[in-house]
């Protein structure tokens, strides 16, 4: 922002909104990281903690929305300030979804805890995919904090990699299930875990689009590069 508002309290309220989003982003990062680690390390305590801490993210979402509503009602923000406020609504909604999806990953990690013969290659792939999504989330939160168009565009462009990993995990899981029907139960959980991570990547790119709007005032209209082809996979041919 070039100069400060004449009304300092308005400036303070906008700053408070940004700070709250950064805090919520931090909590979501911890949540996602906890979810991925609870799968990789089969850590029950961490999984339970992760499930429980989602409530805090939900509460923050409501708190930030209330702040933004108050700002609109009392300050009638315009131009960049208006975009900051609209961006707040959109970003917290994406962060809340990331929190939910992470909670779901953690819950599934508890169910599959006792399953000991999971192929290590699969676990490695899932961890790698999870770390990629976590990296995307971190990067997009940095893009928001730094109001950096360049960083936001990087995130927007690199979601394809997560999609590709999801494709390969999807095929791998299909193979395990066909080879041994006893694996169907556990593999379904893994499939949902992978899908959740893929969705988290999508939410990170949504945030990147919002950051783009915040900075430029334009919504991204281009189709983003996508590689999730699982919706057209025919099981019979696989």
């Amino acid at each position, binding site marked *: 922002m070039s100069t400060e508002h004449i009304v300092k309290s308005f400036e303070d309220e906008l700053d408070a909104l940004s700070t709250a989003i950064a805090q919520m982003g931090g909590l979501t990062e911890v949540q996602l990281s906890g979810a991925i680690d609870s799968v990789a390390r089969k850590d029950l305590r961490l999984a339970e903690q992760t499930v429980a801490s989602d409530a805090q993210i939900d509460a923050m979402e409501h708190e930030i929305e209330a702040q933004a509503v108050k700002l609109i009602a009392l300050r009638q*923000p*315009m*131009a960049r300030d*208006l975009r900051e406020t609209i961006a707040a609504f959109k970003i917290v909604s994406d962060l809340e979804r990331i929190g939910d999806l992470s909670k779901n990953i953690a819950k599934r990690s508890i169910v599959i805890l006792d399953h000991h013969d999971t192929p290590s290659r699969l676990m490695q792939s899932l961890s790698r995919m999870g770390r990629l999504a976590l990296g995307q989330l971190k990067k997009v939160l940095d893009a928001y904090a730094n109001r950096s168009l360049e960083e936001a565009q990087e995130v927007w462009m690199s979601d394809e990699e997560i999609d590709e990993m999801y494709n390969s995990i999807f095929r791998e899981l299909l193979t395990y299930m066909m080879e041994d029907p006893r694996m169907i139960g556990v593999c379904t959980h893994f499939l949902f875990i992978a899908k959740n991570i893929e969705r988290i990547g999508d939410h990170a790119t949504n945030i990147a689009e919002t950051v783009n709007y915040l900075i430029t005032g*334009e919504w991204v209209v281009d189709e983003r590069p996508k590689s999730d082809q699982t919706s057209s996979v025919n099981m019979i041919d696989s």
Partner: protein
Amino acid sequence: MSVAEQISNNGQSETAVENKFKVIGKDITVHYGEKQALFDVNLRIPEHQVTALIGPSGCGKSTFLRCINRMNDVIDGCRVGGELTVDGVDIYRSNIDVVELRARVGMVFQKPNPFPKSIYDNIAYGPRIHGQASGRGEMDEVVETSLRRAGLWDEVKDRLDEPGTGLSGGQQQRLCIARAIAVNPDVILMDEPCSALDPIATARIEELIDELRERFTIVIVTHSMQQAARVSQRTAFFHLGVLVEEGETDQIFTNPKDERTQDYITGRFG
């Protein structure tokens, strides 16, 4: 109906109609004595739209507004340069009848200023001196139509012979608008028409402005950015006598291109 009228009424040439500019200012400069108040302003006002002029005090927005019906002529030492046309006619040409011009380009001021006459005579005054109504019957019709268009008829129809100054502030302002439209103008200039009114009276005027644009082209100067955002289709931002930026109102208020516009509308300088 002429072919041209048929074309403009059948909806197919709506874009062409929308793009028609009623008022065009080219390189407008205004000096008050030695002091220059406007610097090479180029602004086109589209027909049947509301154009809001915004900017801090002393930025030149009212000066520009007053150029459109040559209200600046009455100020000693005021010189206007450049070319200003209304419907393609240069209004600063020497043979222009200024009284006629001000009937075509009406004005509503910040403070409601009804004549110290009856409500009826406030409206009838203009048509009478311009010879636009012959006989009482025709004049009654002009008065009723004007008051209806200004949204005031139902409130005053039973007391048309009472003084206009006895009405409330909001009603007085609508009376002034009715008076301006009674002479059937093309353009209505409004110089902060709601600044002396309460929020309800302001809302009534804003609603009226929206209705009036179907018939007239409206240019409004306002200090309230919310008002500019609510009533106008186009907004022009003036600063230090310069037209900084002009565009569609929603673009100006969500994504202004110029840093100075951004700073002004977000309250970063005054």
